[in-house]
C-alpha cells in the first residue's frame, strides 16, 4: 500500500521536473492536467481505509476540474492570446531542472523536523513531495516571463497544497473542499479574463511590460 503511494509521489516529482524542463506552454498545461490526475489518485490512496462517498465525489470533481476544465480553459487562453512557448525565461530550462534538483533536496531538508512529529500512517515521501511541488510552483512563477506560465505556476503551487491537504489533513468537510476547488477555478478564470484584457490593451502578455507601476 505504502509502496503504491510512494510510487505515485515519485510520479508527482517527475511531473514537476518536466514542468521545469519544458518550454512549450501546451506541454506544460498537459503536465499540470496529469498532475491533477496523480494527486487525485494520491487522495484515494491515502484514504483507502475509509472510502466514503464524499471522498470519491471530491476526488472525481477534482479530477474533472483540474484535469479537464482548467486545462481546457488554459488552452483556449493560449489559442486566444497566441503564444506558443515561453521564450527566454529569467532562468534557462536546463538550469531550472538543475535548480529543481536542488529544490527537491531542500524540500526534504525542511520536511525533516515536520516528519519527526508527523502523524503516523503516511508515507515518508509525501511531505517532501508536497513541499517540492509547492516550491516548483513558486519557482515557475518567479522565473518565467509569460503571464500564462505564471498562472500554471500558481496551479502547480495549488496542487502541492492540495496534495498535502487531501492526504495529510483530517477529512475536510465536503463543502470546504468544494469551496477551495471553486475558488481555484474562479481564480484561474479571472486571471484568464485579465490576461485577455491585458492582451487587448497591449497586444502581448509579456509581463516584462507589466512593470509601469513602481516607485
Amino acid at each position, binding site marked *: 500500500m505504502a509502496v503504491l503511494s510512494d510510487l505515485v509521489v515519485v510520479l508527482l516529482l517527475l511531473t514537476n521536473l518536466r514542468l521545469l524542463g519544458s518550454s512549450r506552454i501546451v506541454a506544460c498545461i498537459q503536465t499540470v492536467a496529469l498532475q491533477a490526475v496523480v494527486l487525485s489518485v494520491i487522495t484515494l490512496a491515502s484514504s483507502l481505509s475509509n472510502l466514503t462517498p464524499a471522498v470519491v465525489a471530491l476526488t472525481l470533481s477534482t479530477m474533472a476540474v483540474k484535469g479537464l476544465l482548467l486545462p481546457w480553459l488554459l488552452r483556449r487562453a493560449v489559442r486566444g492570446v497566441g503564444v506558443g512557448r515561453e521564450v527566454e525565461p*529569467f532562468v534557462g530550462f536546463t538550469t531550472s531542472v538543475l535548480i529543481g534538483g536542488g529544490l527537491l533536496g531542500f524540500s526534504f*531538508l*525542511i520536511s*525533516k*523536523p515536520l516528519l519527526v512529529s508527523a502523524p503516523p500512517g503516511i508515507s515518508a515521501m509525501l511531505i517532501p513531495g508536497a513541499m517540492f511541488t509547492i516550491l516548483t510552483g*513558486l519557482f515557475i*512563477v*518567479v*522565473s*518565467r516571463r509569460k503571464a500564462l506560465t*505564471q498562472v500554471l505556476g500558481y496551479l502547480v503551487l495549488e496542487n502541492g497544497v492540495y496534495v498535502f491537504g487531501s492526504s495529510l489533513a483530517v477529512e475536510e468537510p465536503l463543502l470546504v473542499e468544494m469551496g477551495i476547488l471553486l475558488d481555484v477555478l474562479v481564480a484561474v478564470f479571472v486571471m484568464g479574463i485579465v490576461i485577455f484584457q491585458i492582451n487587448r490593451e497591449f497586444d502581448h502578455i509579456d*509581463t516584462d511590460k*507589466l*512593470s*509601469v*507601476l*513602481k*516607485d
Partner: protein
Amino acid sequence: MGIVLLLVSIGVLVLGSAFCAVASRRSRWANQLGGVVAVAGAIPAILAAGHVLWTGETEELRLPWAVPFGSFYTAVDGLSAFFIMAIAVICGLAAMYGVSYMRHYAGRKNLGPSWFFYNMLFASMLLVVTARNGMLFLVAWEIMSLASFFLVMFDHEKEEVREAGWTYLVAMHLGTAFLFALFLLLSWQGKTMDFDTFGVPSGVASGSVLFLLAVIGFGTKAGFMPMHVWLPEAHPAAPSHVSAVMSGVMIKTGIYGLLRVLTFLGEPSTWPTWWGWTLIGVGAVSGIGGVLFALAQHDLKRLLAYHSVENIGIICLGLGLWLVGTSTDNPALAALGLLGGLLHVWNHAIFKSLLFLAAGAAIQATGTRDIELMGGLLKRMRHTGLAFIIGSVAICGLPPLNGFISEFMIYVGAFSGVTGSVTTGATASLLVVAALAMIGGLAIACFTKVIGVVFLGEGRSDLAKDASEAPALMRAPLAIMAGLCVLIGLLSPLVIPAIEPATRCLIPNSTAYRNVGGMDLYSLLWRISTAFVVLIAFIVGLWALRRRLLAHRTVQEAGTWDCGYAAPTSRMQYTASSFAWPILDMFRFLLRPQVLQQRPSGLFPEKAKFESHVDDVFRKYAYGPIFSSVAWLADRLRWVQQGRNQLYVLYIALALLTLLFWKLGVAK
C-alpha cells in the same frame, strides 16, 4: 472659585472660537467678534489667577472623561496661576491689537479661521497649565501646537511661510514624541495618567532619564538652543499679534512643563548636581547663541525671535542656579535663581510682546520686514517708537525697568553662590555671571542697532518715508505693556509676593531668599527702587536745568554735521550690516557669516556694497545634512519596489523560507 472662573473663561473661548469659525463668511464681523471673545475670555482668567495668587491655595476639580487613562482633572496652584496670569494678560492685549491689525486683511482674506485658531490657542494654553492628567495635558498641548501652526500658516500663499510651517509642525511633533515617552514612564503601569499618581518608576528608569526627556521634549517648545530651529522660522511667518503671543507666552509653556515635571522627580535634595549644570549649559548656549544670531539678522521679526531664544536662555540660567542650589544645599542660590527665572518669565512675556507688537506696527506701516529699508520711523510713529525703545531698554536689562530686576536677582543669586562656601555652586554661579554679562553687552549692541536703524536717522527707502502712525487701538496695548515694564521695574518688592505662591510649589516652606548677603530681599529691592527713583529724579532735574539754560538762548535747526560734506543723504547712514559686522567678525568661527561685498575701486568708484548674511548654523550644518542623507538613503532603497511581479513573489518565498529556517531551526 478660581478654577470655576478659569473653566468659564475656557468655555467662553471655545464657544466663541466656534462662533468665529461659523461667522467666517462675514470677515470683518468675525474679526470684531474674535477680539471681543478673546478679551472676554481673558478677564475671568485674570481674576482666577489673581485670586489664587492672592489666597495662595490650590483649587482642583476632578471630572470623569471617557478616554483611556484620561480624566478631566484640572487644578490651579501657585505655579499654574503664575503662568495663567501671563497668558491671559498677553493674549487679551494682543487680541485688542490684533483686531485693528487684521482689519488690514479683512478684504482679501477670510479672518474667521484665524480668530478661531487664536482663541483655541488661548484656551489650550490655559488648559495646558491647569491640566493634571497626562492625556488631558497631551491633548491640550497638541491642540496648542496645531492652533499656533495654523496661525503661522495664515499667509500660506507665500512659499517661505509654508516652509516655516512645516519646520514648526515637525519640530513640535518630534518634541511631543519625547513627551509621550516621558508621561508614559511617569505613569508606569498606572491605570490612569493623573498627575497625582505620577512618580519615578523605580527600577525601570532613573530620574535622570526622565529629566533629559523633559528637557528635550519641553525644550523643543521653549526653544532651547539646539532644538530652537523652528523658532526663527515660525515667528516671522505669523501675524504680529500671534508672534507676540507665541514668543511671549506660548514658548513659556515649555518652561512650565519642565517645572511641573520636576515636581514629580522625587525629593529635591536627591537631585544630582549635573541637572543644574545641564540647564546652566543650555541656558548659556541659548542665551549667547540666541543674541549673537539676533545681532546678525536683518529681518526685524526674525531678530526678535532669536531674542526669545536668548531670554529663554536667561530663564534657564536662573532655573539652573535653582537646581544647583537645591542639590548643593545652598538655599539662597536656589531661591534667588528660581525667583529671578520666574520673574523673567513674566518680564519677558511683557516686553517681548511689546516689542513684537511695536515691530508689527512698524512693519505694517512700511510694508517690509527688512530693517535696512526702514529708518527714521520715530518721527512718523512717535508713540510706537517710544514703546519700542522702552521695550528695548527693558529687554537689555538696563535700569530702571523690569528687565533689570529679574536679571539682578539671578545675578545676586549667582553672587551669593560665589561668596558661599560650596565650590560647585561657585563655579556654576561664575558661569552664570559671565554668561549674563556677555548677553547684556551683546543685547545692548543688538538693540542699539535695531532702534538706530529702524526708528532713528532718516528713512532709508520710500517705504519708510511715507509711513504713518498706527491706529489708537493698536497703540493702547503698547501703552499698557510699557506701563507694566515701568511699574514692575519701580515696584518690584510688591511684585515678588505674587510670585511666591509659584515658588512655594517648587521650594516648599523656604524663606531663604529673605536673606541675601545679610540683607532681607525686600529691603534690598526697596533700595533698588529708591535708586531707580533717584535716577529718574536726576533725569527730570537735568531736563529742567537744560530747559532753564536754553530758555533765553537761540536754538536752531541745521543739517547733520558730516565733517564738511555738504549734501549728506539718507543712503550715507551706517547700515545694520556694517554696524553689526565687527562683532560678527569676532564670532565668525561660530556664526560663519557670508559676506556679500563690492569694494570701491578706481579713482572715482561708481558704487560699493557691503552686506552680511548669517544662516542658522544648526539648521544648515546639523539638521539639514541629516535629513538630506536620510532622503538619499531612501532613494537608494527604492529599487526594492521596481515593478516586477516575479521579484515580488520572490520576496514572499524568501520571507517564508527564512522564517521557516530561522524559527524551526531546520538549519541545525
